[in-house]
């Protein structure tokens, strides 16, 4: 009897701690404003891009590594993948989900990094505002200032494990997630997830080869 009661108390105790831990995580996400959660990483990414240390070609790889370290922490690539696939996600087996998340993340990371490393031209990022839409959703509005034009870029973020992370990027009204979804919908209406996975994978390979 006693033992049983003790067990119940222990269980409750553990539950209480769990709840506290969860609540604390939740709170920490709310304490840091979404706009600040992005400002830090984006600023340090820009600093790395401008750092003269990485000017020489041989340092590009190191630069890429460092950028990737930052990017993977801010972007929720698993969420992005899921959302980009949308309703068709249920056609994917757990293994396919894992593999596709993997190849698609590689693709996003590579094309992003190649783009910013390849044509960085002292663009500036201006943080305009943030809209907290709900406890689980916010939008950070920025503007990229270029040579002769500027481009509004909005980041959709949500808290994951206490940190605001990006699940969509909207450039001049064009949602990245929606754009990929339109491609995936079209491809998956004719082909299986495996075909899509293979297609992305082989494109990744071709791109990596091309860069060499």
């Amino acid at each position, binding site marked *: 009897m006693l033992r049983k009661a003790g067990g119940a108390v222990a269980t409750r105790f553990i539950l209480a701690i769990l709840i506290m831990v969860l609540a604390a995580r939740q709170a920490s996400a709310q304490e840091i404003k979404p706009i600040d959660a992005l400002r830090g990483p984006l600023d340090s990414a820009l600093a790395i891009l401008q750092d003269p240390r990485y000017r020489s070609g041989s340092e590009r790889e190191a630069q890429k590594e460092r950028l990737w370290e930052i990017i993977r922490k801010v972007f929720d690539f698993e969420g992005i993948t899921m959302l980009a696939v949308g309703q068709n996600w249920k056609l994917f087996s*757990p293994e396919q989900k894992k593999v596709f998340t993997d190849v698609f993340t590689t693709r996003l990371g590579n094309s992003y990094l190649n783009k910013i490393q390849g044509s960085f031209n002292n663009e500036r990022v201006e943080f305009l505002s943030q809209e907290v839409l709900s406890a689980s959703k916010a939008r950070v509005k920025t503007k990229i200032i270029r040579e002769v034009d500027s481009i509004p870029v909005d980041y959709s973020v949500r808290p994951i494990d206490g940190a605001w992370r990006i699940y969509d990027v909207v450039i001049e009204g064009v949602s990245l997630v929606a754009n990929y979804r339109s491609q995936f919908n079209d491809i998956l209406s004719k082909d299986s997830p495996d075909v899509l996975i293979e297609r992305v994978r082989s494109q990744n390979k071709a791109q990596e080869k091309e860069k060499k």
Partner: protein
Amino acid sequence: MNVAWRLGLLLALALAPVGCAHQKGDRASGYAPSSPVGVAVPASDAPLEKPPVAAARADPAAADLSLEEEFDLLDTPMVSVSDPLAPWNRAMFQFNDKLYFWLLKPVSQGYRAVVPGLARSGIENFFNNLRTPIRFVSNVLQLKGREATIELGKFMINSTWGVLGFGNLFASNEETTIPDTDLGLMLAHHGVGSGPYVVWPILGPYTLRDTVGWIGGLALDPVTYFNSTAVSLGSRSFYMINYYSFRIGDYEGIKDASIDPYLATRDAYLQYRAEKAKE
């Protein structure tokens, strides 16, 4: 003219702090003399380290059912697509792709190498100023009095004090910064649907409605009335080269990031126009 491509060009930059093209007008003169543009320095190689995969995500199975409902995430509703001309469009897309890589890009790069940035931004300003009638009339027909007045005011001041429009005296004036409009958007404003998607050679992505708007715009574009067709065409081509001299790398970015560049461009264009129509 090339709203087309520019729009298309958006995507890649997707994640990027280096976005895409095409805010015209106001921002056009803030040229900061700086380095040669992103003439794609071959970025370095080596695949990214594989990211840790989904393991951390709570319950992938649960996600199945309510992908969107879960956090009600996708804020942008999917745009609907009518593409009965897909085979033609894909062929034209290929054509434009080659045109860009084989002609437009090398020419723009060469042009960029010899013409100073200040001159090029002046030229961009000049053509933007020249197209004021399109924006003015479109605003008037949407009964947007304030915007129409601003367009007219800018035109008068830039054409005189701005020396025929080469200077943009409103470049950094937030108050007079208004969205560009055109006859296609004017039609959208009055409830005209976008109609089928069409890719035109050279011009790039359009919808039927925006094609009609573009043709109407020709009548309002002073360039059309240059003394001969050859001069008009020459001016347009020149503008295009000047335009791309600031935007080399944008299209490459999109293409690089997309799984199917045709579909990516189509959706980007349609999303972009849908968003503009809401402004």
